[in-house]
């Protein structure tokens, strides 16, 4: 039985700016952990450290170095000179034989309802569609961990709901460890199994909780959820967010 992932005494600063000072966190395996916090609280920096884009000054990351990652960025980050299909193929090239790649691409594009758009170039797609491609790419890639950095920012309410739905469908079939970062309380409560609330810099954990409600029973009317929402709002209010 593998144990949870842990971050112990993480330190990171950019020149004078202390982003993390002895930050410690537990990330449960095969669950969705949501990190909630104001913008500029070091969420993206944390993700970058976890997947190796940036280096921490000190601290123990136990054990992220052996993991492979999929990443859904705030912007879709698709290659504009490749079609939707080719964009998925780009990340799968080193992982699967061509025939297997083809099947995988078909399957995941189908799951995000983009089968008909597989030969389109990204510039012809709407923001929501691009983000769906980005999510399909993340799931099609055989990673241990899925990192999502405010993936629904800038999408309208309806599109956002639809994409969250798609994401949860995919995740329920393939339960990877997910770290999901957002500043939106409602978004967080619809998705998270573990919630971690960050303070402003240097980031501390203000609040931690687990949610054991199945995803399709969740809405803001739910008693437990509205209670947590109220609590988090209170914390944010007290810390001046």
């Amino acid at each position, binding site marked *: 039985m593998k144990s949870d992932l842990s971050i112990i005494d993480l330190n990171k600063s950019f020149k004078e700016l202390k982003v993390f000072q002895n930050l410690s966190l537990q990330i449960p395996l095969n669950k969705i952990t949501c990190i909630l916090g104001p913008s500029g609280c070091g969420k993206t920096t944390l993700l970058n450290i976890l997947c190796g884009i940036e280096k921490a000054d000190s601290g123990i990351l136990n054990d992220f170095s052996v993991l492979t990652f*999929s990443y859904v960025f705030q912007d879709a980050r698709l290659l504009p000179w490749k079609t939707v299909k080719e964009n998925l193929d*780009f990340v799968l090239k080193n992982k699967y034989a061509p025939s297997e790649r083809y099947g995988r691409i078909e399957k995941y594009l189908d799951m995000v309802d983009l089968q008909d758009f597989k030969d389109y*170039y990204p*510039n012809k797609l709407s923001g929501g569609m691009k983000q769906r491609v980005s999510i399909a790419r993340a799931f099609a890639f055989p990673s241990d961990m899925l990192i999502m950095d405010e993936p629904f920012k800038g999408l309208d309410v309806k599109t956002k709901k639809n994409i969250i739905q798609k994401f949860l469908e995919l995740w329920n079939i393939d339960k990877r460890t997910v770290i999901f970062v957002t500043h939106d309380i409602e978004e967080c409560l619809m998705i998270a199994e573990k919630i971690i609330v960050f303070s402003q810099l240097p980031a501390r954990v203000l609040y931690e909780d687990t949610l054991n409600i199945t995803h399709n029973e969740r809405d803001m009317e739910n008693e437990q959820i509205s209670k947590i929402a109220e609590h988090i709002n209170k914390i944010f209010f007290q810390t001046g967010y």
Partner: protein
Amino acid sequence: MKTSITENKNIYFLSIIVLLIIWKTASFAYNNEALLPSPESVIISMINLLQSADFIKVLCFTLLRGFAGFILSLIIGSILGTWAGINLYVEKFLTPLLSVIKSTPFMSVILLSLLWLGSEKTPIFAGFLVSFPIIYTNMLQGTRSIDKSLIEMARVYGIDRLHILKDIFFPSTAPFLFAGIASAFSIGWKVTVGAEVLSQPKYAIGTSLWESKIFIEVEILLAWTIYTILISSLIEIFIKIIEKKAIRWKHEI
């Protein structure tokens, strides 16, 4: 879309016809076939040249020199441009050199090169020297324009360097490089022929231009000039075709 292409072509032909009419009128008015020959007599000279024994040799040698200078500038310009695009120190280091190259009169370059490299290599060197800064500058901008977030994405997904080069670096810089290639070639080509006039290699368009001037065969001078222009335009069209294929995605958007 289709109508605009035919319209463009019509305008293109119209401009050539207007040019010919002006030429014809001028030669008619000037009334000195030896100094300003009419278009017909130049066309006849062109046909005569085409049938002459050395025509292909002259053409091929000049083309070879043009290409040699161009390929050199393409290779060295791309490598240095990329390097300077990645590393600010390299760019700073190369900036004075580039300004020297750009502002030296190309006649001085040709005369010096004649002394140093001899008559065969001088046109190549001169062609290289004028096209190199163009390729370099374009490649520098192209490298700067690469979206770093895409490279970050590729790294997270564990894509190897070779594929980052092939699928991100080349497509990002291709539009810049092709813009550079088109103008670098046409300028390099003109300077190569110009340098041939001074350096007088055995077989060369430049040498032929010079000889026709010596013998006051203006219609032959003009005939060679038109061949030079035609070759340059043909190669430019060829480059455009390759460009369209290479960056097809841009045209489909």
